[in-house]
Each structure stands twice: as structure tokens, then as C-alpha cells.
């Protein structure tokens, strides 16, 4: 019973967040310079009747609240995000749709690698808190955390692509390159540096968080008990410390999703990786607001979903949350 109430609460929160995003997007649409009828008004050859007809067609003759808001929310839910300015009036959904795959590839793999490496590094440094290895590892994590993603990417290109010549500098594939398995290898070679950039940029925060939560767990009574039972260090770490220390990482990984996406957008620009990031920059340069808002909406919904998933996962991992014992 309690578990279901908790679940419903989370679900309600997620829906409320998405509604707020819609509201925000709606307000931005109204603030926007060159909104549909203003663009028409600048053109002296458009007659007053044509203007009025367009306003009626777009629903601009109705009051902003609630009619226009309802129309906007209705259209968005049906998947009508409007039309791109730059791409000759193509639907925003189709412009954005084809860019999702490449972004998902580098962000997904980068995040996975960062989680694995960050957990390993954080556990190791937390376990040897105060020793030399901890100092070096923590300094490394701080440096990685303080670097802008795009700068890290530029450094990696300069070193591994330009100077050493191991990997291509940019793009997603060699133009006119082979297909099949060789094509897949070509794709991976192009993806290697963008993935490495995102992974390296993220490792720092996961490592710092895990270090402090491992170090905190070390002081707990159950660790002392485990020690007293004569368990080996490795057993204590795996069986007693990590299950508890990993919990905040789940939340951070989800909470950070929005932040990661922001960083990943700039990584794509550095590597000319044809995903949402490059699309964002293009749209920004041509002031293609419908596309920008579509991207914002898509990313927001994904991030809200990620957080909902993390909440569910958290409640699986930590029964106290589910039963309302701890907040």
C-alpha cells in the first residue's frame, strides 16, 4: 500500500515536471522575436485579410490563456512540434529524429564507461583514504571534473588524431568508406574519441562521490562487525560497503543526465559528430527556434524518464525507501 502510494507520488512528480516544461516552452514561444504573425507583419505585401486568416489558422486570434496554451499542449502531445526554419519547413520531429541515434551511441557508451571506471576509481581511493594513491586519484578526479568537455575533446584531438595520427579527427565515417564489418570498425574508430571525452569528463564526479560514500561506510558499525567476524577485505568491500555506497551514485547518475547531455552537445561540435549537439549549434546559428525547442523538450522528457527509472531502481536496491522508513 505504502509502496504504491510512493510510486504514484513519483509518477505524479514526473508528470508535473513535464507539464512545467511544456508551460516553459509555451511561454518561450510567445516571447520569441519573429513569432509567426510578427514575421508576416514585417512583409508589406501581406494584406490585412491574409494576416487575419493566418492568425485564425494558427489560433493566434484566441486569447493566450487558456485557448492557445491548450492548443499548444494538444499539438505537442500529438507529436506536432512545428516546422524547422532552416530545413525548408520540414517537420521538427523528423529533423530531430534522425540525429538521436548518433547522440545516443556516444552518450550511452560514454556514460557506461564513466560509471564503471568512476566506481572503480572512487572505491579504490575511498578504501585507501589519506594514502598516496588516494591523493593522486582525488587530484586526478578534481582535474577531470574542472575541465569543460569541449576543451578535453580538443586536447584529445590534438594528441591522438593530429599528433599521433591514431584516430580520425572528426565526422562519423570516412566519406565513401566501406560498408559491412569494415564500416562498423570505421564507425567505432570515429566514435572512440567522442566517447572517451564524455567518459573522462564524467569519471571525476562519480569517483569523488563514491570516494566519500565508501569512506563514510567504512566508519559504520556493520563494517566493524564484518571485520570482527574475520571477513577478508575483499568480502567486506563487495558484500557490505559497496551495496550501501553505490546508492547515491544511482541518484547522481540520473540527476546528472541533464548536465551530461549539455556537455555532450559541445563534444559533438568539437568532433563534428552529426547528432543533436551539432544540430543544436546549426539551429542556434540560423535562429531555428522550433528545432531548439523540440530538442529541449525531447531532452527534458528523456531526463525526467531517467530520473523516474532511477527512483524505481533505488527502491529496488533500498527497501527502506519503498516502505517509507527513510526519506
Amino acid at each position, binding site marked *: 500500500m505504502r509502496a504504491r502510494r510512493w510510486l504514484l507520488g513519483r509518477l505524479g*512528480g514526473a508528470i*508535473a*515536471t513535464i507539464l*512545467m*516544461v511544456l508551460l*516553459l516552452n509555451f511561454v*518561450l514561444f510567445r*516571447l*520569441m*522575436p*519573429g513569432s509567426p504573425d510578427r514575421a508576416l507583419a514585417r512583409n508589406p505585401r501581406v494584406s490585412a485579410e491574409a494576416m487575419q486568416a493566418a492568425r485564425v489558422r494558427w489560433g493566434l486570434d484566441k486569447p493566450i490563456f487558456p485557448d492557445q496554451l491548450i492548443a499548444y499542449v494538444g499539438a505537442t502531445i500529438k507529436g506536432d512540434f512545428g516546422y524547422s526554419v532552416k530545413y525548408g519547413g520540414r517537420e521538427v520531429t523528423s529533423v530531430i529524429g534522425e540525429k538521436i541515434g548518433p547522440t545516443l551511441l556516444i552518450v550511452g557508451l560514454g556514460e557506461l564507461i564513466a560509471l564503471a571506471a568512476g566506481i572503480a576509481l572512487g572505491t579504490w581511493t575511498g578504501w585507501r583514504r589519506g594514502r598516496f594513491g588516494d591523493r593522486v586519484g582525488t587530484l586526478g578526479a*578534481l*582535474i577531470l*571534473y*574542472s*575541465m*569543460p*568537455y*569541449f*576543451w578535453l575533446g*580538443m*586536447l584529445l*584531438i*590534438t594528441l591522438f*588524431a*593530429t*599528433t599521433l595520427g591514431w584516430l580520425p*579527427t*572528426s565526422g562519423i565515417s570516412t566519406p565513401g568508406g566501406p560498408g559491412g564489418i569494415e564500416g562498423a570498425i570505421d564507425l567505432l574508430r570515429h566514435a572512440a574519441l567522442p566517447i572517451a571525452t564524455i567518459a573522462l569528463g564524467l569519471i571525476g564526479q562519480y569517483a569523488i562521490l563514491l570516494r566519500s560514500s565508501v569512506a563514510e561506510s567504512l566508519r559504520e558499525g556493520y563494517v566493524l562487525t564484518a571485520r570482527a567476524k574475520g571477513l577478508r577485505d575483499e568480502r567486506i568491500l563487495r558484500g557490505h560497503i559497496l551495496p550501501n555506497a553505490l546508492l547515491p551514485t544511482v541518484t547522481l547518475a540520473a*540527476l546528472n*543526465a*541533464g*548536465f551530461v*547531455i*549539455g*556537455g555532450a*552537445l*559541445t563534444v559533438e*561540435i*568539437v568532433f563534428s559528430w552529426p547528432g543533436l549537439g551539432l544540430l*543544436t*549549434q546549426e539551429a*542556434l*546559428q540560423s*535562429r531555428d*527556434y522550433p528545432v*531548439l*525547442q523540440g*530538442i*529541449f523538450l525531447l*531532452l*527534458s522528457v528523456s*531526463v*525526467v524518464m531517467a*530520473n523516474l527509472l532511477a527512483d524505481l531502481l533505488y527502491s529496488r536496491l533500498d527497501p527502506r525507501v519503498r516502505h517509507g522508513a527513510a526519506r
Partner: protein
Amino acid sequence: MSASASVNLSTRIRRRVSGGNRIMLLLLHRWDARIALMILSLLTLSGVAPEILVGPLQTATTATAAALLPPSGTHLFGTDDLGRDLLNLTVHGARISLVVGALSAAITLVIGGGIGMIAGYRGGRTDALLMRVADTFLILPTFVLALILAPILRELIGDQTEIFGIRTTLLTIVAVIGFTSWSSTARIVRSQTLSLRERTFVERARLVGLSPMRIIARHIFPNIRTVLVANGIVVIAGSILTESTLSFIGLGDPFQPSWGTILGNAQSAAAPSLGAWWFITAPGCAILLTVAACTIVGNAIDELLDRDVRVRR
């Protein structure tokens, strides 16, 4: 100085000096914070007086050197694709990056602190609503929101004027960062306010009949000031990172280049694939050092505050 002497000194400081000054003095007794503060003062110095250090800002017309020269005796950090000296650009960039970072942080703290104090003090429905909004901003890809908001705001107010010597293009960035990054400050301030609200001196002020606004201003705010400073330093680091990213993407001001703008220029000039490592080294290291130093100082203050609370108990 030996370890025991330093411990003695810090206990003496703890006893005699009070409040924010004590935190500052204790801070100077940690070697990592000392290095970080040194870096920050150096950067602030170059931000305050770039003209004295490297002369006026070089532009495409005043640049004298050849393009993309590697570092040498005359150009310590090399030159960019227009022949501008990178030392000159980076030192001048310090002013823009630090001022935009500090102003954005100030706005973030005002919004976050205000919302946090009101939510924490009022409680109930106000609290629930405000925290719902804060959570939304915490989760959302606010950076993407900033990307959309900046050009809209710019077209609304126009970008030809200057206010206090800062161009409005940069002020829109300040406003946008402030508007999108206040939520974690609000959360921290709220939880502090919640515990302060139950303390006797606040209750007494309520009994005497002070209005909520007065209680917040006179009794709550002074007690969260140190927490706000610690958070503020971390917020500055975040703002500088966000500013550099926005400028990198091309939302900066070409006439007042920040470190991010220089890196954006390097990207359009294809510096990484030309092997012009010096083009990205100086501005990038400046960002890295500033953000790392701010993070170290912020964490150190946090730790000292934690210990302070424990000692008093």
C-alpha cells in the same frame, strides 16, 4: 611549521576569532586552500588590471604578429589565427570570464537564497510549490534552456548598448545563467532555514511581533551567510564553466572575448586538427585552474563549517 604548532594555532584561532573571519583564517592553514587562494588572487589580479600587465586588448586590426605562431620568447603562449598574442587574450579573457562568472553567481545566490529562505521559513504549501519548481530546474537540461533563452533575450533587449562597461550580450548570459542555476542553492538554503526556524531566538523574534520579512532579514540571513559564501564559491565555478560553454558555442561577445570565446575561435580555426596546441592551452588551463581552485576553496569551507558545528555540540 610543524604539524603540532599548526594545530595549536588553529585551536587558538577557533577560540578567539568569531564567524566568517575565523573560517577565513582557518582556511589559510590548509595547504590546498592556500594554493587555490593564491591561484584565484593571481587570476583576479589579471582580471582587474589586464592593461597594465599585457597592454590593451589586441584585435584583428591591432595584431602585429604572424598567424598561428607557436610559443616563443616574444609570444610566450603563441599567437592565434589572426596573429593576436594569446597571453594578451587570455589575461584580458580573465576579466570577462571572472566578471560574468561572479555576476551570474551573484544572481544565482540572490534567487536561490531568496527562494530557499522563503520556502524554508513559510513552509506548507509555499514550500511545496517552490521546491517542486526547484526540483524541476535541478533535473532539467538547464544548459539547453540557457541556449534557447540567451538569443531570445538578446533579440528582445537588443545588443548594442553597454551597462557599466559590460556589453548587453554578456549581460544576457549573466541573466540566463542566474535564471537556470539557482535550484541547488535554494535547496541548501531551505534546509538551513528549516532548522533555524525552530531555534529559540527566531521564536522569540516571532513572539515580539517581528514580521516574517524582518525575521528573515535580521535573524535568518545572518546565520546562513557563511553557508551562502561556501556555496557561492562553488556556484562561481559552475557559472564560469557554463559561461565558457555558452561562449564556445558562439553566444559570447567577439568584442569582449572570454576564455570560452577564445576556445570557440580555436574551434572555428580548426586548431586541434592543425596541431596548434598552444591556441587551446592557455585559455583552457585558465578555466581548469579557476574551476579547480574554486572547488577546493568551497569544499574546504564546507569541511570547516561541518567541523565547527561538531565542535560546538
